């Protein structure tokens, strides 16, 4: 198997259909297939195909071009500091790098995005490389050196064949792509959209007005956003008259981080005609493994049953092709509603890093390191990362439960709860708070937590910040918050 098959099928079955809209550039599937062959022809034997640029037609041609040439595609974040980029480049040699930057790297040939898609084309069939690496993605490295996650052709094909119906999109459908090329959602957007036959409308740099304008201009029907993006869109609309005119938009999916309940509730109110879907997945699982679909959103919003209502804060149920298990720290299976470690199994799950190898256990289960529970009907609720749990005097405290209480205060706009080293307790609770208007009294905040939870959950340290540090894909950088609190 080879992920190039996705494009080959699309080009043969709907070659004239528009595949990508990128500014003034428009590619049909036949154009994309040709550009892919041109990219593949530039690769020398043994070279990986690296990509250091914003979203562009060359990004899609790069994914499929590397596959056609039988090598891997390695997107690198252009937002990193130069010295971090240099360190990553050393780990991927030899390579051909698609970039518009002038910077040279040892053992790496360079080509511009435009030049990559001209000249000779590589003819012939894509090799059968089922077990070979298709994509290498550097994880965000929130806890240390970035890890290189490996996705094989078999993993990605299992994901696409299991979750997307070929050519299921109507000709008028268009998906707005805002996630960057080096994020798993940026990769899966290309593969899913191509297989479904849904036009990709690329927006290289996200801003709320830019997103809304492009969605209107290109009659966008589908979009995926990370929570921070949706939050900014909702705020922007609130500041500009309160209406969001997107009559063509049918489906809005979100994922990549925890969605604050007020944001999703507001978004549903602004776009009552839109189907909302929450997608939960990891780089190591080839994207989505759980979905909270439109019906579940509607049921939760109109229900008076607290057990149904709370599902708006869940990430939904496992895909039919994926198994989910919650385990205690001793490895025993948890009962319904019992919090533990989230494990996942399925053909799309790679769970593998370059160097460190496969993290799957003997039965094929991957420990996601996410903490959560599954309710009686299979809905998964997440409660942070195992690494983020605060252990105070032997008692495990989830940052999420304290954050939820603090967010209930009218003056709190955003909050991050992290561990602070403590001689007495090992760790205690620290909170960084972004205020709405004037700062609330710290004692008042502590009393709120004491009243709703218990005294061990009360922050021993509270700081106020102008904003919390998020990665551009919406991940809260708890390490940075911990550093801030440690300096107090």
């Amino acid at each position: 198997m080879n992920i190039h098959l996705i494009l080959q099928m699309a080009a043969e079955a709907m070659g004239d259909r528009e595949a990508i809209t990128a500014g003034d550039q428009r590619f049909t599937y036949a154009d994309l297939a040709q550009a892919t062959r041109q990219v593949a022809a530039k690769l020398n034997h043994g070279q990986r195909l690296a990509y250091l640029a914003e979203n562009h037609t060359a990004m899609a041609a790069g994914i499929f071009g590397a596959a056609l040439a039988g090598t891997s595609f390695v997107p690198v974040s252009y937002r990193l500091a130069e010295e971090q980029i240099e360190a990553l480049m050393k780990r991927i040699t030899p390579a051909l790098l698609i970039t518009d930057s002038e910077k040279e790297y040892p053992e790496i040939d360079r080509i511009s995005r435009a030049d990559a898609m001209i000249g000779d084309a590589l003819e012939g069939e894509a090799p059968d490389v089922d077990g070979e690496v298709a994509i290498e993605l550097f994880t965000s490295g929130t806890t240390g050196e970035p890890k290189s996650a490996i996705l094989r052709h078999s993993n990605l094909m299992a994901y696409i064949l299991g979750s997307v119906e070929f050519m299921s999109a109507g000709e008028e459908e268009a998906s707005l792509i805002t996630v960057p090329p080096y994020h798993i959602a940026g990769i899966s957007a290309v593969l899913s959209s191509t297989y479904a036959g849904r036009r990709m409308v690329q927006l290289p740099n996200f801003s709320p007005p830019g997103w809304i304008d492009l969605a209107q201009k290109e009659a966008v029907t589908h979009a995926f956003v990370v929570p921070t993006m949706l939050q900014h869109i909702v705020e922007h609309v609130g500041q500009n008259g309160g209406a969001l005119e997107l009559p063509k938009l049918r489906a809005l999916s979100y994922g990549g981080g925890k969605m604050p309940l007020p944001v999703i509730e507001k978004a549903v109110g602004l776009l009552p005609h839109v189907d909302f879907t929450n997608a939960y997945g990891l780089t190591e699982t080839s994207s989505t493994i759980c979905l909270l679909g439109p019906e579940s959103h509607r049921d939760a919003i109109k229900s008076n049953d607290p057990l149904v209502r709370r599902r708006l804060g869940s990430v939904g149920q496992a895909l039919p092709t994926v198994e989910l298990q919650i385990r205690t720290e001793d490895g025993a299976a948890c009962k319904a509603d019992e919090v533990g470690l989230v494990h996942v199994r399925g053909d799309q799950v790679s769970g593998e890093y370059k160097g460190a190898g496969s993290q799957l256990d003997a039965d094929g289960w991957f420990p996601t390191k996410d903490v959560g529970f599954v309710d009686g009907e299979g809905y998964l609720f997440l409660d942070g990362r195992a690494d983020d749990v605060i252990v105070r005097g032997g008692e495990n405290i989830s940052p999420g439960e304290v954050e939820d209480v603090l967010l209930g205060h009218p003056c709190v706009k955003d909050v991050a709860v992290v561990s602070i080293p403590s001689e007495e307790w090992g760790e205690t609770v620290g909170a960084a708070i972004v205020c709405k208007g004037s700062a609330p009294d710290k004692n008042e905040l502590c009393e709120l937590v004491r009243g709703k939870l218990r005294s061990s959950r009360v922050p021993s340290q509270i700081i106020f910040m102008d904003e919390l540090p998020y990665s551009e894909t919406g991940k809260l950088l708890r390490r940075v918050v911990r550093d801030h609190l440690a300096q107090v």
Partner: protein
Amino acid sequence: MGDIIKAGTKLSSAVCQTQIMALRAPIERLEITCGGAPMVTEDGEKGEMDSDLAGGTLVGKRYVDEREAMEFLCTRAGEGTVQVNGVSLDIKQAKQLPSSD
């Protein structure tokens, strides 16, 4: 008769444009035909189709036997009917999921 087919094996019809890829198959010899003629690994010149086996294939659909012991993805559409050991395959009805990316 027939061959043992591995997942990932691509087969072409000898009588029409149909191409299929095995997604899973039991470890046993299978006689796979399209339009009445054995399917081949090298796409080449097309012969005569059995007019009783001209039901057609649809690109992107998955074809399974009754027990779902084997599954093939149609990667190119054609006019023939795909059969395994003389029995026509059926289209697998997949549950449509909402788009998530």
